[in-house]
């Protein structure tokens, strides 16, 4: 039944170019590679990693080809609408409903494909060094390849079923990879937590998908988007609830506010996994889903409607962005700082989508992937080379910038991109989100955005200071060949928190404290091996360069031009708050039922924007960039940098200053300590989930279940057993002993007696036998005669 050879949707395929037509190969190749690695990996000379890298490279080549052909397709369209290239085959069918599998490739998908394949390739190259000698080296590469395949499947999904398929493959692989070193309990718990937290959200995905099928009668993404954009649905509220359900899935997957707690714990996995998971796959999936089904969310939640000051997506995004940034301040683990930073940036993306800044958000996915991947790989490089596999910034780092120039340089560039310093990539995407929020009259979110920018700069400055500057401590001091500032036995203390990250697991098959094989002790004076630094350099370059694909500050709108057809909604042209407002006025009125006025206004709006002729819903055009508009944000970024730098020097620095008394303030001052504790405990959300929700819900349930088990089920079972025993005894006594045995004995007796009675007949004399024979024959003859007469 699989892959019935009929092709259901052939339209728009013609003359799209080979790579675009065959981009379904992109997820297929790593998918097959997964099985190859799993089955034959251990016998291969490089443990299966070569298969993984080769498959990712092949996918990358096809993705790059598809990207070029897509650009060509857009450029040759001369302003007309560029349709996606959709191909579907029937995967299975149930009661006449066919479920397809195939591809839906457009600007958004091309962007994501390129991103995922590119970063996966680099991460796999990096991993060959990082997890070298690991006991589950082959499984690691199998999982990570399937992980990429899952994301690619989701990105290419032409319908919701394939989307869910890819989505769940990723969930499974994140579980496998986070729990890669499952021998330590903390790691396996983190893996379970990630899996179950995401599963909570997945219920929303299933419910939302079912609702979409109910509303639009199709699972095809194209059909759903067109239906939503054309207003072809029953009631607004139904669509809203579908959007809410789908958004719950995104909250779980993308680590948005109430369900973000799994993401920092996911640091238990190997660093390359964190890097992949936090940049281009997994967490981006939620944002991607919103971007993919944007008409559903935009129309369902009435984004950009007149007078709307907030909506679900923007609120969740805004809360996430502030909360996660606040949490990043109190982390000592460099990977956790980065994890919260990812959560915070995902909050930006969601907020951007929530205020109608589709292009800016998608572009932020693009730029963020490069610099966040780079940051994580830098953290891995430091722990690999400098800090004895520790990630503790306070105990095992500091002052290492001198010896690791490449690592340090990439970190600085990526940090600048993350903080949104002008002319680094993050600036172009993040600033546009903030600018759009202001432009679309979401003033609250504008303020949230610039405050978030301030906080981002501040916590990254703190992390940078602790990691690279100041006096070397612990593992770093060892690495630098410096006497430790104090004579504590840091080497032992530094490894207390193995459970937090687990990267210092005995992956290298020897003691943590021994030098890495092939590297003399004290370590070689310079940076990590080339397999680690090469991906870092490439990503660092892109952390700067990727921003120039869509730099409004420089008047570049290339990226927007390539992807705008994927929004699914026309862009309100002609500078238009008015156009957008009018368009949504039309929507509002239509909902109210007074069609005439609404249509009138909608027509008016349509007249203003040419491409929006029949569209009811539009997204606002990206605002025109003005330095004056960006200035407040930039000033806050600068302020954040200076404040944090000053505080870092004062608090963590060697020299005594007026602020030195602040050191240890959290221990001494109760109110400050309370805030610190509140943040360290992640707002007590884990407590809420584990202690209150689990205890409050699961314990009574289990208690009731226990009672039910003991009293009812056991009672029934016991009763059944007892009555069964009694019945058995009665049956034994009466039926078995008397009836059955009686019958057997009686028949035996009868046979015996008959035998004795007939014994004389067997005289042994032939004559007598003959007499009997003829006598019987005579009797029979007489009977025969009597009967016949």
């Amino acid at each position, binding site marked *: 039944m699989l892959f019935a050879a009929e092709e259901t949707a052939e339209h728009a395929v013609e003359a799209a170019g080979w790579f675009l037509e065959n981009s379904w190969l992109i997820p297929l190749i790593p998918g097959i590679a997964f099985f190859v690695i799993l089955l034959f990996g251990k016998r291969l000379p490089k443990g299966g990693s070569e298969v993984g890298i080769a498959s990712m490279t092949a996918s990358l080549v096809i993705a790059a080809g598809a990207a070029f052909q897509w650009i060509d397709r857009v450029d040759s369209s001369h302003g007309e609408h560029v349709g996606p290239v959709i191909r579907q085959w029937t995967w299975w069918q149930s009661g006449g409903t066919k479920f397809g599998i195939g591809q839906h490739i457009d600007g958004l998908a091309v962007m994501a494909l390129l991103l995922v394949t590119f970063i996966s390739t680099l991460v796999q190259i990096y991993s060959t060094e990082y997890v070298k000698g690991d006991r589950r080296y082959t499984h690691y590469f199998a999982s990570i390849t399937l992980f990429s395949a899952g994301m690619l499947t989701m990105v290419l999904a032409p319908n919701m079923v394939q989307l869910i398929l890819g989505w769940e493959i990723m969930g499974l692989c994140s579980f496998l990879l986070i729990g890669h070193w499952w021998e330590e309990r903390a790691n396996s718990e983190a893996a379970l937590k990630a899996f179950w937290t995401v599963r909570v959200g997945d219920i929303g995905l299933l419910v939302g998908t079912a609702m979409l099928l109910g509303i639009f009668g199709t699972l095809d993404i194209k059909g759903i988007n067109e239906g939503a954009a054309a207003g072809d649905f029953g009631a607004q509220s139904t669509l809203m609830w579908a959007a809410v359900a789908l958004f719950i899935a995104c909250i779980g997957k993308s680590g948005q506010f109430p369900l973000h707690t799994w993401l920092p714990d996911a640091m238990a996995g190997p660093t390359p996994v964190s890097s992949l998971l936090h940049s281009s796959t997994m967490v981006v999936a939620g944002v991607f889903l919103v971007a993919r089904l944007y008409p559903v969310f935009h129309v369902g939640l009435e984004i950009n409607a007149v007078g709307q000051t907030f909506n679900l997506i923007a609120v969740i995004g805004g809360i996430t962005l502030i909360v996660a940034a606040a949490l990043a301040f109190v982390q000592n683990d460099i990977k956790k700082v980065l994890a919260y930073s990812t959560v915070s940036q995902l909050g930006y993306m969601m907020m951007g989508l929530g205020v109608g800044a589709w292009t800016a958000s998608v572009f932020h996915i693009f730029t963020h992937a490069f610099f966040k991947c780079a940051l994580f790989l830098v953290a891995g490089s430091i722990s690999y080379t400098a800090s004895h596999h520790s990630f503790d910034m306070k105990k095992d780092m500091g002052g290492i910038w001198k010896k690791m120039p490449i690592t340090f340089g990439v970190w600085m560039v990526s940090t600048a991109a993350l903080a949104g310093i002008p002319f680094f990539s993050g600036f172009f995407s993040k600033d546009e989100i903030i600018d759009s929020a202001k432009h679309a009259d979401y003033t609250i979110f504008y303020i949230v955005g610039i405050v978030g920018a301030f906080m981002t700069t501040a916590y990254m400055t703190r992390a940078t200071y602790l990691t690279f500057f100041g006096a070397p401590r612990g593992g770093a001091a060892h690495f630098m060949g410096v006497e430790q500032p104090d004579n504590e036995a840091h080497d032992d203390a530094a490894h207390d928190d193995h459970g937090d990250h687990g990267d210092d697991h005995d992956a290298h098959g020897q003691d943590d404290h021994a030098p890495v094989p092939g590297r003399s002790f004290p370590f070689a004076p310079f940076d990590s091996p080339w397999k680690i630094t090469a991906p870092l350099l490439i990503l660092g370059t892109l952390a700067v360069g990727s921003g120039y694909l869509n730099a409004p500050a420089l008047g570049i709108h290339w990226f927007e031009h390539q992807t705008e057809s994927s929004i699914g909604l026309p862009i309100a042209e002609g500078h238009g708050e008015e156009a957008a407002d009018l368009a949504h006025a039309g929507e509002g009125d239509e909902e109210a039922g007074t069609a005439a006025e609404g249509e009138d206004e909608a027509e008016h709006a349509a007249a203003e924007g040419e491409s929006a002729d029949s569209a009811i819903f539009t997204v606002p055009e990206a605002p025109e960039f003005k330095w004056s508009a960006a200035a407040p944000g930039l000033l806050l970024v600068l302020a954040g940098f200076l404040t944090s730098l000053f505080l870092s020097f004062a608090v963590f620095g060697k020299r005594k200053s007026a602020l030195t008394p602040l050191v240890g303030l959290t221990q001494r001052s109760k109110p400050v300590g309370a805030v610190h504790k509140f943040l360290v405990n992640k707002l007590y959300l884990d407590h809420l989930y584990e202690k209150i929700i689990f205890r409050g819900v699961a314990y009574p349930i289990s208690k009731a279940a226990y009672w039910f088990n003991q009293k009812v089920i056991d009672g029934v079972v016991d009763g059944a057993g007892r009555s069964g025993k009694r019945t058995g005894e009665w049956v034994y006594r009466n039926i078995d002993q008397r009836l059955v045995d009686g019958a057997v004995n009686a028949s035996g007796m009868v046979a015996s007696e008959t035998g004795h009675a*007939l*014994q*004389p*007949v*067997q*005289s*042994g*004399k*032939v*004559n007598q036998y*003959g*007499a009997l024979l*003829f006598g019987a024959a005579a009797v029979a003859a007489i009977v025969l005669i009597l009967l016949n007469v």
Partner: protein
Amino acid sequence: MYAVNFLLLSAALFSIGVFGVIARRNAVMVLMSIELILNSVNLNLIAFALINNDIDGHIFALFVIAIAAAEVGVGLAMVLMIYRNRRSIALDGLSEMHG
């Protein structure tokens, strides 16, 4: 020609045979009596074959003769063995198989 003549002769032979089987103690005589019975049957078969003008009865009688010859062969062999072992062919003494 009436079948009754043949049948009467046949019945007489049969009765003599049966009497011989039951009453004689000599094993050889019992065997001979059995031959009488078989021949009475043959007579019946041929009689009915003649009346019905059918060849089947004749053929059947030939078979019976052949089987009777074989039977006598086996029977006489047995009698010979019994005589060798017991120096007697009286059937009265051969009652080891009694129940």
